[in-house]
């Protein structure tokens, strides 16, 4: 183990403990492309997220960041290795999981309240109770006046708030987020990050947050995973010891934050360059 700075401690990878919220143990995932070739998405991938921990995954485009999330949901199965969620091997989509997508995954034909109530209704909770909870969650993300609006009538930031309420209403113990704020403008993104940290600290869920934005990762996370250019594997892991609660608008001017971001960027930069040169060569 190599200690880089006080605030950004580089961790060594060990086999995950049994009680971790998420344990991805030495996983390789290959799949056959439609034209019959074997593709390796990620290899020898190990990752542990403790209960209540906020982990961010950064890496160059196409390195398999989103794949790691789909392994946890069970939508993808590992070729070799094991994935455990709350101590149990992943067999099906777990009820403990919530997922916030990069793209707009709200149902455009449902109003805000119908979107938020979708989770409880799918899970068989009586209608009246589901709508009570939905109303409560809509108020918590500050959209009380927009219950009857349809998604297309809302701004991008408001739609993300709906997506957060839709996910948090199921009270997921595991929260997976796939570049959820990448399409938002700077101010909205900062507001949403604060919103997310607030909800997370109340709910005590374990989070895996995938992003290509290193500053976002450092600002949010307890732990940052840096992946190599595809096929992705963990290059290094950093523990971020910035005090909480963090205020997103201010943290980027914190000298400690700047220092950590610099250290990790040095690590990430060569992978990004490698990833870009490969993209240019393969023409994808």
């Amino acid at each position, binding site marked *: 183990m190599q200690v880089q700075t006080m605030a950004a401690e580089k961790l060594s990878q060990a086999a995950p403990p049994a009680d971790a919220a998420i344990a991805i143990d030495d996983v390789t995932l290959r799949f056959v492309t439609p034209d019959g070739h074997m593709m390796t998405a990620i290899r020898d991938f190990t990752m542990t997220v403790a209960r209540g921990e906020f982990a961010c995954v950064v890496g160059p485009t196409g390195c398999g960041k989103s794949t790691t999330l789909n392994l946890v949901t069970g939508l993808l199965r590992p070729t070799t290795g094991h994935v455990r969620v709350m101590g149990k091997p992943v067999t099906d989509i777990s009820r403990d999981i919530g997922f916030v997508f990069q793209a707009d995954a709200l*149902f455009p034909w449902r109003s805000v309240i119908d979107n938020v109530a979708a989770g409880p209704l799918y899970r068989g909770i009586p209608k009246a109770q589901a709508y009570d909870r939905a109303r409560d969650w809509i108020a918590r993300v500050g959209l009380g006046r927009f219950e009857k609006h349809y998604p297309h009538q809302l701004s991008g930031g408001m739609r993300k708030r709906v997506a957060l309420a839709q996910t948090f209403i199921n009270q997921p113990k595991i929260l997976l987020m796939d570049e959820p704020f990448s399409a938002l403008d700077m101010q909205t993104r900062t507001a949403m990050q604060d919103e997310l940290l607030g909800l997370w600290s109340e709910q005590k869920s374990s989070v895996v947050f995938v992003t290509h934005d290193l500053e976002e990762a450092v600002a949010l996370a307890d732990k940052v995973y840096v992946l190599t250019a595809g096929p992705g594997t963990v290059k290094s892991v950093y523990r971020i010891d910035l005090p909480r609660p963090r205020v997103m608008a201010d943290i980027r001017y914190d000298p400690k934050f700047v220092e950590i971001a610099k250290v990790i960027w040095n690590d990430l930069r060569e992978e990004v360059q490698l990833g870009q040169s490969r993209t240019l060569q393969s023409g994808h």
Partner: protein
Amino acid sequence: MTAISPTASHAAVRDASIAVAEARARARLRRRHALVIGLRLAILVAFLGLWELGADYNIIDPFFFASPSGIWEQIWSWITEGTSQGPLWLQIYVTLEETFLGFAIGALGGIAAGIILGRNRLLADVFSIYIKIANSVPRVVLGSVFIIALGLGMASKVALAVVMVFFVVFANAFQGVREADRAMIANAQILGASPFQITRTVIIPSAMSWILASLHVSFGFALVGAVVGEFLGAKQGMGLLISTAQGAFNANGVFAAMIILAVMALVVEFIITRFENYVVKWRPAPFNEQGT
């Protein structure tokens, strides 16, 4: 660093000038709307007028190409005196009944088949070739088969309307199911939806705009199916009216029946549009050309 802020301007003056500009813009929109309607009416009047004049001066032979006044007289005599095969309303009713039955059966069948095949890769791969083959058969020809098999009554016309409608709706429903957003399906899955719930609450609503688009087209096809079926052999209906008029070299009769059919199609089209707006009220309002 200095913060630069605009100087306070005379707010009242500004508000007044905005109100004037808005009133002008509204007046301009109203004038344009009136212009569009006026031009539309002018074109209709000019077209009918030239046709009538041409027929009067024998530039357009009214024996072959009819004339607006002749068509109107024909329609009026059908309304007041009835047609050679009974009252006009009965003919319209018969044709509409065949059309609606064929449309409903064909559309429901097409939607069901589209969703089942769209949701099941294996079935889709197996059946796609047969659907292509069936779709390439000129379906109007099936009308003769149906007349032979099902007789001169309603069943043969309904069957022809069904096959006219089925493939259009099926193709659209299938495509709509396939185009359903992957992230949205995954979202529903993680929120806890069962496969049946996904079909009901994600797949069908997202295929709905495709299906509705096909309903517009396919109602016209159902009408064609019913009329062609009557043409080929029937005891009642608008198609028989046309074929009788054709046999008697009555051009006015053919045009009159055609106009009645067009009005029927327009009325139903209007109803379908209303239904569509009701079903997909969640959709952002499309950019609307004025005066429609």
